């Protein structure tokens, strides 16, 4: 319970921790904290889980990550997701709990990375070798066997790799399940309340959160504002270089089951993920949803919080998807949607306390992998908060790392 925590709680009825942001990350932090008996309030200025979490896809991928701290977090999360859903199901009890994983559309369908060109095939071979060394299961699939995995894949595939660990979840349903657990444990959820900044006590510690609905005394504040985390951090007096990186997804009309069986993507995905180019980057990920529609994602551009779409981006996605799956060429797209990934200059999330402002914590900057990284993020934050030994080395994600410093200086200037 809370004995390990070095932070004295404020007097009831005030919360120990206010989590700002009810996206998948805020929800995962609140879940992990309440599991430890911490009294939590979750605030969101908008309807719950309606930010980036409701505007992306639910891939839980290890396949797209090179060895490094992000892959470590992804592997820990990928092991954690099914256990977490099972635990929450048990907690809910017989009647409501059974089938929680099913309701969250959790599915270990596996990823298939495909190289259509020679260069991609070479890059992929080197990439998977390094991943295997880091503990990823990656099985090469010969060009002749690939159609057994995906019957509608284009002919002429040069190389393909199957990643059985890749899974998927419905992000909004998953966030709702986590938030439901928080509420059942006595946590408070408040939508339509905006965090405006923090109040500081004598030692400079956070003593309260200033909100659009008044000041809320609390022991600590977790900034889980997703792409808006930079703005809130600034208002709190501890600037953080988190920015939006926009992504668009195409949705097709419902197709027969089995048309697309895995998460299929072309090998140049790897290139776009690791880049900070403002220029448009697209790399196609094609996957089917439970409803039969196929999602084609996604692009990456830095265009601020611009809501309006560029048709050139949609064209690029369509081009790459039809190159992978020619049969999709005559299938209608019924919708396009998009969101803003929260990204940091070094493409790593920020998880942990802010040394500049005691009592302020961050859990943000997960860019295009927040759904996949959520459970380990929540766990790590809660362990650090409770003074437990962390499941992962927290160093690479700390606020005061060199990868953030330069940009921070620029932001605050």
């Amino acid at each position, binding site marked *: 319970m809370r004995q390990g925590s070095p932070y004295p709680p404020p007097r009831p009825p005030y919360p120990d921790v206010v989590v700002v942001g009810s996206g998948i990350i805020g929800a995962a932090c609140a879940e992990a904290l309440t599991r430890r008996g911490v009294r939590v309030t979750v605030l969101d200025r908008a309807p719950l889980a309606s930010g980036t979490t409701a505007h992306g896809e639910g891939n839980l991928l290890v396949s797209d990550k090179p060895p490094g701290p992000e892959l470590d977090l992804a592997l820990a999360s990928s092991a954690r997701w099914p256990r977490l859903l099972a635990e929450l199901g048990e907690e809910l009890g017989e009647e409501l709990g059974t089938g929680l994983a099913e309701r969250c559309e959790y599915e270990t369908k596996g990823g298939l990375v495909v190289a259509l060109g020679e260069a991609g095939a070479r890059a992929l071979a080197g990439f998977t070798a390094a991943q295997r060394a880091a503990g990823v299961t990656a099985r090469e699939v010969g060009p002749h066997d690939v159609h057994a995995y995906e019957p509608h894949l284009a002919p002429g595939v040069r190389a393909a790799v199957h990643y059985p660990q890749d899974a998927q979840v419905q992000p909004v349903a998953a966030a709702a399940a986590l938030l439901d657990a928080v509420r059942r444990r006595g946590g408070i959820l408040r939508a339509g309340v905006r965090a405006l900044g923090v109040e500081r006590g004598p030692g400079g510690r956070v003593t309260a959160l200033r909100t659009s609905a008044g000041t809320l005394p609390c022991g600590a504040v977790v900034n889980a504002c997703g792409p808006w985390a930079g703005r809130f951090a600034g208002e709190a007096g501890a600037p953080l270089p988190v920015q939006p990186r926009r992504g668009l997804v195409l949705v097709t009309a419902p197709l027969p089951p089995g048309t697309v069986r895995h998460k299929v993507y072309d090998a140049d995905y790897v290139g776009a993920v690791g880049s900070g180019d403002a220029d448009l980057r697209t790399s196609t990920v094609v996957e089917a949803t439970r*409803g039969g529609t196929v999602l084609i994602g996604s692009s990456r551009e830095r265009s601020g919080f611009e809501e*309006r779409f560029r*048709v050139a981006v949609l064209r690029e996605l369509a*081009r790459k998807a039809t190159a992978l799956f*020619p049969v999709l*060429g005559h299938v*209608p797209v019924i919708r*396009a949607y998009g969101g803003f990934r929260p990204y940091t200059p070094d493409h790593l999330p920020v998880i942990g306390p802010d040394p500049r402002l005691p009592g302020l914590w961050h859990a943000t900057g997960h860019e295009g992998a927040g759904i996949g990284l959520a459970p380990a993020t929540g766990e790590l934050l809660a362990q650090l908060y409770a003074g437990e030994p962390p499941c992962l080395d927290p160093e690479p994600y700390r606020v005061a790392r060199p990868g953030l410093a330069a940009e921070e200086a620029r932001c605050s200037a």
Partner: protein
Amino acid sequence: MFRVTVDGAERWARTGQTAAAVLLAAGRASWRTTRGGRPRGIFCGIGVCHDCLVVVNGVPDVRACWRVVEAGDRIETQEGARLPCLPPETGAGTTPGAAREVTVPVVVVGAGPAGLAAALAAAGAGARVTLVDDGERPGGQFLRQAADGPARGAAVRAVQEHPRIAWLPGSTVWALEPGGGPPSGTQDRTDAGWTVHVLQGPADAPGRTAHTLRTAALVLCTGAYDRALPFPGWDLPGVVTAGAAQALAKGQRTAIGRRVVVSGTGPFLLPVASSLLTVGARVLGVYEAGSPAAWLRTPVAALRDGHAKLPELLTYAARLARHRVPYRTRQAVVAAHGRDRVEAVTVARLTPEWQISPGSERRIEDVDAVCVGYGFTPQLELALAAGCALRDNTWVAVGARQQTSVPGVYAAGEPTGIGGAALAAAEGELAGLAAAHWAEHRGDAAGWAPADVVARGPAARRRVLAGRRFARLLAAAHPVRDGWHTWLGEDTLVCRCEEVPYGVLRTAVGERGPDASDGLAADGMCTFKLTTRVGLGPCQGRICARNAAGLCGPGTLPDPQTADRRPIAQPVRLADLAAPGPEPRATTALDPTALDPGAPDPAAPYREDPT
């Protein structure tokens, strides 16, 4: 006449006939099954609901109500979701040619009464205009042309003959982008114009011709579609919207059934029943859920502002009386019965709140079609894609010149408020004048003289104001009351596409507790949709979003802007989307001085139309 096949059997078809009309003529009430196995046929009749999907020439997901057939077309039933059957060698290689690019001062989207008036007014003011509509012939709903008859209506003929109007028939605007318009000579970000993406050709066919229109001013006249309230059996084939029956009667000279019941609220039920009679249907009754005489309580206002509409309505009423069609108020069809299609209905008397008066239900047997209309829902996709602000979260907000909140974008007709064809035309005229003016003078503050525009259009403006007063009277006389919620059973579908029944919706809301203010009840439409799948199907919530919102209690749902935000306004086949687009263009002129058209005289009147 030419031949097509329906599930392998040869049928004759007429020029301009839709696949739906061919199928109805072949005696089919349904030609698709949902993924859940339910039979479906025509419902909205105008391309909105996606119920009528059919396979044409091996390509599934074609809207039968929109697709005009051609000689030799193979029409087949669509069961569940289907993949296109393509010869194996086609696919990635069949990408269509590059888009045709046109730069034009004014683009008008929609050729209903509003769009026709807008195009003529703008062209009359000297601007070149491109008029785009997804119909084969201009006219929209009110002026819907018979597929193979002569042009009806002066405006319909005029737009096709006007030298400055380019008419693009059978053309769908599927996306809009800010920027890329003709240079304005200024550096102002707000007048970089618009890029309008159009596909022209047989509805939902792959490989349609792409046009990219670059324009300074945009007039959105996209109309509206019927609102249908759900009731048990409303998804049986044979139950259609009032507009569907009207569109079939006017456009295809096809009666939706032989023994038809009309139900709903609003004056639109009268022309629908009247058209049904014209094409030979027997109308068993018109059931008006409200009490329509309410507007006669202010007869002076009604006569002053409704002089355009009242005589028309009286003509319809007279025809109904001649045919001895019962017209009953405060009654409605509250259930439809049948196995694979509608065979009977239950009609009930309604309380003032629209609950069923106990014991008042009675069955009408031997019914083969039911037409329902509970007002109209505006088509907002393009306005929202352009970033236009809404009024009451429902309508495009416009000023005295029909200008929206976005400079250079104008709206007229039903998207700004439901008021009928005459009001739509008056609004269109104002919008067309203002758009032409903007295209000429944009970016030049001195040239921007609203009074100048209104000076040309005071008469139109007066008609707009009178039309809106009358529309308010009618709207007040025909409100939709919440009592309809009590008509539904647990298994009544609310979302027809994803087959989400009322019970599932109720549980979703109930679990969260509609009054648990801290609960997920505070969720917006977005979250709700993703957890229940309401509105995620092919119609994208066009039919169900408003009803689902109504059912979930006040305040819980939705943000209509989220529900209506559909940046891809019409489905596009992936290969067409993948087709090479035009090069992106700088949005502002590089050298403003070189392109300066010269300061226009702010007081200059519109150039006279030389024709």
